[in-house]
């Protein structure tokens, strides 16, 4: 993939005080590694909801027109709860696939907004035509999405007015295969950051990483740091994963409503995949047509590391409370 387009707009801190840096090593032309440098913790994190409210206030001070991108999932709903508690004005938007291909997903975002008196902008996209026309390919090349689905989401961002704020996932550890590893955004997930930067737009590509204290707060305060959580392999268990995640957010202080239908959700693109598989007459049709062309996983994708300052005793204390096999 080519390098992303150089920054066209004014410098903007996509993470608080630019604490997070994402670099390919040795460089983006011949990358062997992806490294995420995390900023130092200024203090031991407070509870996740307290840190999230602080992050929402900080973003409210920096963004003129924050637009929360709600997928219908827990992570973005938790982000919206933090903005509500912080009293920061915001708009909300969701990506609706033509033909109701993700209706099962975005209905939860609609329910949440209705319950909380939030106006939700629904941006309709025809994902079938988008993919058939190959429009995902130049976007993938420009921003290293490594998937058609992320390219589709970037198209949604392109159509959205205002300053997009994305939820993303929370920092956690898992060791389903024995080796303890971190679950956090990878280079391909930073494609949204690359898009915002190249378009010169303000926004937040990963709300749950906006401050170092928020990123580490779940490991510091919830069951996600426990051995039971780490041992789980959630592959093929979306219902259990949803309930676990809901419990983690509630432990963190988020008052999230239970939406049982959400247990069937995995990533929100299931309906699109099924549509193409039915067209092609095979359960592998979508993968063959839209995933296989991306080729083998690049080497840097297999070698991704979170780098913590060795003098950041608080962060290391939180991470190294886990079994030591997590450190290389």
């Amino acid at each position, binding site marked *: 993939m080519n390098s992303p387009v150089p920054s066209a707009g004014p410098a903007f801190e996509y993470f608080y005080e630019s604490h997070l840096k994402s670099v390919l090593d040795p460089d983006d032309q011949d990358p062997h590694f992806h490294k995420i440098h995390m900023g130092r913790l200024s203090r031991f994190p407070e509870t996740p909801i307290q840190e999230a409210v602080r992050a929402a206030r900080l973003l409210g001070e920096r963004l003129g027109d924050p637009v929360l991108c709600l997928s219908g999932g827990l992570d973005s709903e938790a982000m919206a709860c933090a903005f509500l508690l912080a009293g920061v004005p915001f708009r909300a938007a969701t990506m609706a696939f033509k033909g109701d291909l993700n209706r099962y997903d975005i209905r939860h975002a609609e329910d949440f907004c209705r319950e909380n008196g939030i106006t939700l902008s629904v941006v309709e996209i025809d994902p079938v035509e988008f993919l058939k026309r190959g429009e995902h390919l130049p976007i993938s090349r420009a921003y290293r999405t490594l998937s058609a689905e992320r390219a589709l989401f970037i198209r949604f961002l392109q159509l959205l007015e205002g300053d997009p704020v994305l939820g993303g996932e929370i920092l956690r550890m898992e060791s389903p295969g024995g080796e303890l590893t971190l679950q956090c955004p990878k280079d391909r997930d930073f494609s949204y950051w690359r898009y915002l930067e190249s378009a010169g737009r303000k926004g937040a590509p990963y709300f749950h990483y906006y401050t170092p204290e928020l990123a580490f707060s779940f490991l510091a305060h919830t069951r996600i740091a426990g051995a039971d959580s780490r041992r789980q392999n959630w592959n093929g268990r979306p219902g259990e994963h949803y309930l676990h995640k809901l419990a983690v957010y509630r432990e963190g202080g988020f008052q999230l409503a239970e939406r049982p239908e959400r247990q069937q959700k995995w990533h929100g693109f299931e309906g699109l995949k099924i549509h193409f598989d039915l067209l092609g007459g095979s359960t592998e049709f979508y993968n063959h047509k839209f995933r296989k062309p*991306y080729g083998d996983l690049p080497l840097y994708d297999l070698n991704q590391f979170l780098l913590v300052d060795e003098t950041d005793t608080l962060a290391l204390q939180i991470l190294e409370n886990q079994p030591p096999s997590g450190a290389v």
Partner: protein
Amino acid sequence: MRPLALMPQPEATPDKLDADILPARKATQKARRKTDNKKSLIRLRMLDCEGFVPFRIHALKQIP
């Protein structure tokens, strides 16, 4: 499930898709050739993380 060979031909041309991703695939193959032993390379390269403690991020077998 029908075998792929019997399925209707996709509308987007596979040639176009291949042409679009070929440079990326070549770059990856080039990077792989440089790493005779991935594990030893990781250990060696981690020396460049002076001042930082590296934690491995979970690698997926398939891109989601």
